[in-house]
């Protein structure tokens, strides 16, 4: 028996012992076909899922390589049934192909006739198929391309999409690499995406996803539609594109609630795309407004359901998804796979941090003991009020103040979910508050002031969760959150992960009320980051020195 770093479990998880000498090699061998599920400090957990195996198949790996990788690196005997299952599953991919027939256009072609017969009989699939051309070929209407792929995936016979993409309207875009250059992993991500045609790139916040997008646009050299979560994020995209590429102000349009510009590069928000009147989507025509050569989806994990439906119709366009995490709270990972595309690039956070591309971060959970009155109030609160009661406890204020003072020479973000609390904190810290109702112009002004150092402390609501580029923010203090959302925690940490000019460590504090729901939710929220290898240190609020007092005493 070889003393390998890998343990293959019967539930198809792979345990990789990180400290083992052969860990790096084993990781490289299994990464193509296994999803990294957790990467805490000692043992990383990968899972072999059908999606992952099909991803590997799509990337040109065959079952033999997979079996060999498992057997070679495994410490114990690998369950034979698992190997057989792997081979069977991988064999299912590509039995069916979507191809472009020179005469008939889009067709579904089978390498295995029985499979074609099986899927053609399936109730879900039958209506999407057209005329049967011969034993192995069935005509498919181009508009059904996406839905057909979704349905076939559900049946367990994922089709290989070889029908190609339209080039779209040409529009030259070049990267302007003055004083910066594409990082290795960014190049890898773009290459992986371009080879696969369409797909998702997974990179941690702060690792330069926007640049990956820009590089992909330069590669495509065509008109591009960029979908982002909100207007501010859109403007940051615009800013970044202007800085990093040859694009000029006139070439970039904003399509949002405020403005409706359609230019060679158009940035639209999810919100405007999903706006409806009388059940009709108002802005569907945007997808057909130009002959787009590339569509970029920022923050794929937040992609709303209607956008999925629209995406199904534009399967002949190249699609690039960008995200920090494929974890969707709604579990629609399968739709991302079939409609945007397979995962094309993935790198664990800690690895990119080790390369110095994101700032090292120290996560701290600060536990606040509530006063007796607060505890009593909490104890008798209505169930739906309880979380708010403890999350906004007055006792937290002192700690927040001490934390902000402790990092007086850094830029500090105070993040919360409850507006009253944020207003109070803003008043106490004498810092501006940015929330949903803050006008975009005002927001940008404040962010700009924060960037330049005019303001060192900002109090923000969840509007700042994503896609706000505040490179110099080094400290985040989280006072309350949206219940137990794991992905929110990761996004908030992402705010402080941009590498700092002086290489200093970022700090992420989450202030929780001891022995309450707050603590329970915090544990849940931290799970994702703990699994990514960010270990939280727990400290008691009383252990955080009060700079005022210490200075007073001194």
């Amino acid at each position: 028996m070889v003393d390998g770093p890998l343990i293959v479990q019967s539930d198809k998880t792979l345990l990789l012992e990180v400290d083992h000498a052969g860990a790096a090699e084993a990781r490289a061998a299994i990464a193509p076909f296994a999803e990294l599920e957790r990467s805490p400090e000692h043992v990383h957990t990968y899972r072999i899922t059908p999606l992952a195996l099909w991803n590997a198949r799509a990337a040109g790996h065959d079952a033999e390589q997979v079996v060999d990788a498992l057997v070679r690196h495994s410490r114990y005997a690998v369950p034979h049934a698992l190997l057989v299952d792997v081979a069977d599953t991988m064999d299912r991919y590509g039995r069916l192909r979507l191809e472009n027939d020179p005469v008939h256009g889009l067709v579904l072609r089978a390498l295995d006739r029985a499979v074609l017969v099986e899927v053609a009989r399936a109730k879900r699939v039958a209506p999407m198929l057209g005329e049967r051309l011969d034993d192995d070929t069935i005509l498919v209407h181009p508009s059904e391309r996406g839905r057909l792929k979704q349905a076939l995936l559900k049946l367990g016979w994922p089709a290989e999409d070889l029908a190609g993409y339209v080039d779209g309207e040409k529009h030259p875009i070049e990267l302007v690499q003055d004083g910066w250059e594409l990082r290795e992993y960014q190049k890898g991500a773009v290459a992986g995406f371009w080879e696969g045609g369409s797909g998702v790139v997974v990179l941690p916040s702060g690792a330069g996803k926007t640049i990956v997008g820009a590089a992909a646009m330069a590669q495509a050299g065509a008109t591009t539609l960029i979908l982002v979560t909100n207007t501010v994020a859109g403007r940051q995209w615009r800013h970044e594109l202007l800085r990093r590429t040859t694009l000029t102000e006139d070439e970039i349009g904003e399509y949002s609630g405020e403005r409706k510009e359609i230019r060679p590069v158009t940035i639209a928000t999810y919100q405007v795309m999903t706006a409806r009147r009388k059940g009709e989507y108002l802005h569907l025509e945007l997808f057909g407004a130009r002959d787009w050569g590339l569509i970029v989806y920022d923050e794929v994990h937040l992609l709303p359901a209607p956008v999925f439906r629209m995406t199904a119709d534009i399967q002949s366009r190249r699609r690039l998804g960008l995200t920090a995490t494929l974890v969707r709270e709604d579990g629609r990972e399968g739709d991302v796979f079939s409609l945007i595309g397979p995962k094309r690039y993935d790198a664990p956070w800690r690895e990119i941090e080790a390369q110095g591309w994101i700032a090292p971060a120290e996560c701290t959970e600060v536990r606040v003991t509530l006063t007796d009155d607060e505890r009593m109030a909490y104890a008798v609160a209505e169930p739906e009020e309880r979380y708010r009661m403890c999350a906004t406890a007055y006792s937290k204020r002192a700690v927040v103040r001490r934390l902000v003072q402790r990092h007086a020479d850094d830029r500090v973000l105070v993040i919360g979910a409850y507006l009253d609390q944020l207003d109070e904190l803003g008043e106490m810290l004498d810092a501006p508050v940015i929330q949903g109702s803050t006008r975009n112009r005002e927001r940008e002004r404040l962010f700009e002031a924060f960037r330049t150092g005019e303001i060192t402390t900002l109090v923000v609501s969840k509007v700042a969760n994503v896609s706000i580029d505040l490179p110099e923010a080094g400290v985040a203090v989280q006072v309350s959150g949206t219940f137990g959302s794991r992905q929110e925690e990761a996004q908030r940490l992402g705010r402080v992960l941009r590498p700092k000019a002086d290489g200093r460590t970022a700090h992420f504090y989450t202030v929780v009320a001891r022995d309450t729901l707050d603590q329970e939710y915090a544990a849940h929220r931290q799970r994702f980051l703990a699994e990514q290898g960010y270990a939280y240190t727990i400290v008691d609020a009383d252990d955080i020195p009060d700079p005022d007092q210490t200075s007073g005493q001194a």
Partner: protein
Amino acid sequence: MRMSIPADDEVRDEPVTLAGWLRARPDDALVRLFLLRPDLATPPPPDFDILAARLEVRVSVARAMERLDTGACEVLEALTLLPGGVSLDRLATLCGVDGEAVAGLAAVVDRLRELGLVWGDGDGLRVVGMVVDLVGSRPLGLGRPVRECLGAYRQNQLARIAGVLGEPVAARAELIETLGRRFDDPAAVRGWLDDCSPRARALLDRLAAGPALGTSAEAGRVPVLAGARGPVEELLARGLVIGIDEETVELPREVGLAARGERPAGPLHPRPPALTGTEIGVPAADGAAALAAGTVVRWVATILDAWGAAPVTPLRTGGLSVRDLRAAARLLDTDERTAAFVVELAAAAGLVDATAGVDVQYMPTATYDRWGTELVPARWAALVEGWLRAPVASWLVGERDERGRQIAAMSLDVRRPAAVEVRAEVLRALAAAPPGVAPDDASLRALLAWRSPRRSGSLLAAMIDGTLAEAELLGLIGRGAPTTVGRLLAARLEAERADPARLAGSPSRPSGGDAALCAQLADALAPLLPAPVEELLLQADLTAVAPGPLTPTAAARVARMADVESTGAATVYRFSEDSLRRALDSGLTAEEIHAELDRLARTGVPQGLSYLIDDTARRHGRLRAGPAASYLRCDDTALLAEVVASRRTQALGLRRIAPTIVISPLPTAEVLVGLRDAGYSPVAEAADGRVLLSRPTVHRTPARSRPASNDVADSRLAQARDVLRLVRRGDDGAREVRAAVDAARGVGVGFTRSAPLILVMLQGAVRERRRVLLGYVDQQGTPRDRIVRPTAVDGGWLSAWDEISAASRRFALHRVTGVAEVDDTFGVPSVGGATQR
């Protein structure tokens, strides 16, 4: 005491009888016969005549023949082709063996003799009459003798064949005999064969290779040779094949033998077919075995722990309900078939059983607790040992029985007595493969078919499939190849098979299991398993990974404080508030948990986990609950203090749990009385507000005792010896009586009066077409003797040609009072029977 048979030269004169031969057998041989065929000895036969009669009983002979391999069967069939009292050399000639192969043939004959299917020494081999019946009329793919075949023809058809052979036309019976005599000359038959056209000859050779029956539309007629079209008509015209009904032709035995030429018995199969298959490699097979062993042990533990906490109720008709089976499958994360196997496996090893009494429930037995403390190899060995002897076909679970009902696990419907034997056979057959080779299905089945050609059918096919699947799950085969432990088990089964005292499907096993076998198996498995570890990798996300199988004690301790998240070679645990609370509930303290984790953690305990432990411990037990049958409350704390302190209330067991509350284990009424006696004036309160918590109970039932016998083999040997002693003694007595009777009556017709002997004589008469004198009591109760020619014995009735009324009649066997041989003077020479060629 014992009468020995007279010397050899005397035997030549007197016809040798089976009883006489048995009487002359040495004791050892007879004891061995009883061991090999226990049904002969129960109840002990009174004398050798009865024993000889039992050797002729159809069921018993059939059962003995079931155990023969193809080689032995073929020898037995060959013997039925030969006349009684044939020499070994003659048999060897028929089988086409010479030189050293004769020794092999002799060994086969010895085995047949040992089994009581063949008797007589090397120069006078005979088969037991019933064997002839069971082998059938077409042994070794040859047809029936020509005289029997011709019986299907009408007079004019016989006449046409007679014409071809140049014989004069005569009466039917006479004509058949005349034609038959012509066929008796092999040289003549060969001459006829040479006359045939090449196509006819090719067809003939095909029929000669067996089976001797063919289908043809022309079967119904005998054409004139000159007008014959095609090979079938030609052969029919020549009388070389005979139409036995409208669409079947048969090649007579004489013609078949002639066509086979040098090898009259045809191709024989004295050696088992070799197993072929894929090379897996011993390490790969053993690796799979280790994995399987660990898994199956974990499965059993998982199900039984669940059933221990919440026993399941069986169906009214017995067995596990589909719902419970599904739940078990979900629990194991596997399919229902595997779950059924695991449940049956646990039951076979005596780890789970139904409770006695009215409210029947399935729950783990006390044996399970002991099992749970053993190391994995020992646990696994106990399971394998139970499985080996369990007459259970778990793969039937979920199928429908003949009434369309679903077969439930643990019900009587899954019991198949043959399962044990088939299982042993499959395991032995597997082990015949070279080490590290996974035999392919076809060659395995060919070997099994060779070993027991008389077993067949869909049930058998399912049994082989089922056994293979189960052996794989148990790790006796790994990826199709027998593993080290599988080979060990097969070797053990082989040894048992060689020892007849252990053979013959003895269902009983020592009640505590076969400890020696278990130990052997466990020792063999232990080196295959990965070395157990005693360390955990604790991580900040509150998971812990045991990078290998944990030692049982460590595993039990960790399982108390963390939930298992993923299993396999390693185990992933997750700590949560719930799991830690469970640990605290079970009596651990936070300090003990810390100490245990510090000891196990190779890389230290992350801060998050220690905080979680402390937090949980801090909250644990802050609320207290306890039993009290009644309480006292009073706003005046001084008064309560007085009551508790008072000497007169000591008997009430009062305990003060708060300044204003006192509880008592006595019911309210008694407390009230006690307090009033002590001079207080309490008032009763309504009974609500009482809290009773009960601890979760774990259920156990005592293991039901199994048929226990400490040394099966010894006691069976002793039994067989006792039986033999009885037979010898009884036989001596019976012979004396018979001699006395004969002396008194002079030499005359001797009626056989014993019922089993009557049956054997009648069956023999049917076979050999002999006439017998039948003593019969008719329906009016009148006894009458008549001479009959028996034609069939079937279902308690004898069909026979009655010479007196010159008609076919049926006689009830239970009214037959005696049978006697009729001398040859009475009748015509008998017509060629199977044994009279």
